[in-house]
């Protein structure tokens, strides 16, 4: 329910200022929403490409792992995997788009030196190692894109809600209040005008009676 505002000139000015601010905010939020939507669409296209690659690269990596298992045995592959160092090369930087922190992972080099010695291993193990390195590169890109999409989507929803609130509630309310106050004030002005007219008329008539 709309708050009752006293119909004064001060309140009218306050309401008009608030209305002006709300309209400006609405325009800005609308622009922000459009920019975020454009950024989101760009990321969604990237995510779609990456997810398509993901299926292929994961399938290739698992196929390479199967070949490595066949080549040197499952236990040996397990033993080799222990020599591979844990990856700590992910560097994440944040870029601000309309106040939303979009993560950017520094590119991981495609070339990767083997993390194990060659004795007791085979070319199939090298292939599996490289295939999983590609998976790692892709996972970093996917994490970047998915986090960006998630953050953008959350921000777009918030912005959308704010735009709607301004458009559907705040601006009409202030508009209505301004109209109502304006109407009351105009009514008051008209009443004052009429009252002044009447008193002026009454004054004229009274003077006429007193002066013979």
């Amino acid at each position: 329910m709309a708050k009752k505002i006293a119909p004064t000139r001060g309140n009218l000015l306050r309401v008009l200022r608030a209305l002006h601010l709300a309209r400006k905010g609405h325009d800005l939020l609308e622009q922000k929403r459009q920019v975020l939507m454009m950024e989101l669409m760009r990321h969604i296209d990237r995510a779609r490409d990456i997810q398509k690659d993901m299926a292929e690269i994961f399938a290739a990596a698992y196929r390479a792992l199967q070949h490595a298992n066949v080549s040197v045995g499952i236990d040996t592959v397990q033993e080799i995997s222990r020599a591979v160092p844990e990856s700590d090369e992910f560097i994440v930087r944040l870029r601000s788009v309309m106040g939303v922190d979009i993560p950017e992972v520094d590119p991981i080099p495609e070339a990767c030196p083997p993390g194990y010695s060659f004795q007791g291993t085979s070319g199939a193990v090298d292939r599996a190692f490289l295939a999983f390195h590609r998976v790692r590169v892709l996972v970093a890109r996917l994490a970047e894109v998915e986090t960006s999409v998630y953050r953008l989507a959350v921000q777009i929803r918030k912005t959308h809600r704010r735009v709607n609130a301004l458009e559907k509630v705040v601006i009409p309310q202030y508009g209505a209040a301004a109209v109502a106050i304006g109407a009351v004030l105009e009514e008051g002005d008209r009443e004052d005008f009429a009252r002044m007219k009447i008193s002026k008329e009454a004054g004229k008539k009274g003077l006429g009676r007193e002066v013979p």
Partner: protein
Amino acid sequence: MPTPERYGYATARIRAMERRFVDQGVLQRMLDAEDLSSALKVLGETAYAPWLAEMKNERDFDRPISSEMFHCYEEVRQFVPDPEMGQLLRITYDFHNIKVILKSMLRHRRGQSRRWDLLTNLASRETDDLLAAMESEDYRLLPYGLSGVMEECLSVWEQTQDIVEVEKRLDAQLFRALGELAKATAFPGVLRWFRARVDAENIRNLLRLRRAGEEGVKISEFLHEGGNVSLERLVDLGSEPVESWSRVLHYADVAPYLAEMGEQGSSEAMLVMLEKALDDYISGMLAPFSYTPFAPENVLRFLWSKEIETKNVRIVLVSKTSGLDRDMVRKVLRRV
């Protein structure tokens, strides 16, 4: 000085043991089997049958394979006149165990679990002895000249935290120790086998390093001395196209096997075929000794063939668990 005449009994025993080999027909039937259980049933008709009962589940097929190999090594050890002959192939398992123990120790320092399950009983030295020597840091007790190398390895690890550098030093020591063992036997065939083994390892490493984009000095770090082909020639070979390797190394025994590889299309297929060709090269190098009745090299030939046989059995069984294409698997099976 060992004399070949002492190998009459050993050769006769080996002839008898060779009859227990899994032949191509059995491998083919295993490969054509519908699933893993059917393949294991076929394996049950071979010398592996007594060990199949040890399996905890169907996928535990590494256990019977190891048991059969261990049984062969132990049997050969009992009748072979020179213990070095038995150690020539088991030494790689000793080094495998050393690597497992070392990595477990390094993992343990970082608060991670140890993986003793990856140790193998195929080594020539008791695992407990290696473990005791490593845990007590009394590296003098380590065999095969590892005492000096281990300290170097740990120092490298402290400085670089790079396990590849550590493993490289252990691999280099493995080939040094293998060379010393081969020299200790003083049999020409064994020395030829050692040189062929070094060549095979070097050529394989060379192709793998090329695929990884490595060059020059980096390549030489992964190569071992003692082969028929000098290290300088191998490093130079790194800049040549793979198709011309057989021509450049025309003087070496390995050349005809490299010529087969040049016909492969992709580099991946090339590497797979190269690994097979190099195993076949060593098998082919040992094969003529089967016609010499009392040649000590027959012991080595038998053990090498057994290793190749277990490799083939493992390839077939793993391919059954993974459901890999039969034709692809058929291509990688080695000649026994």
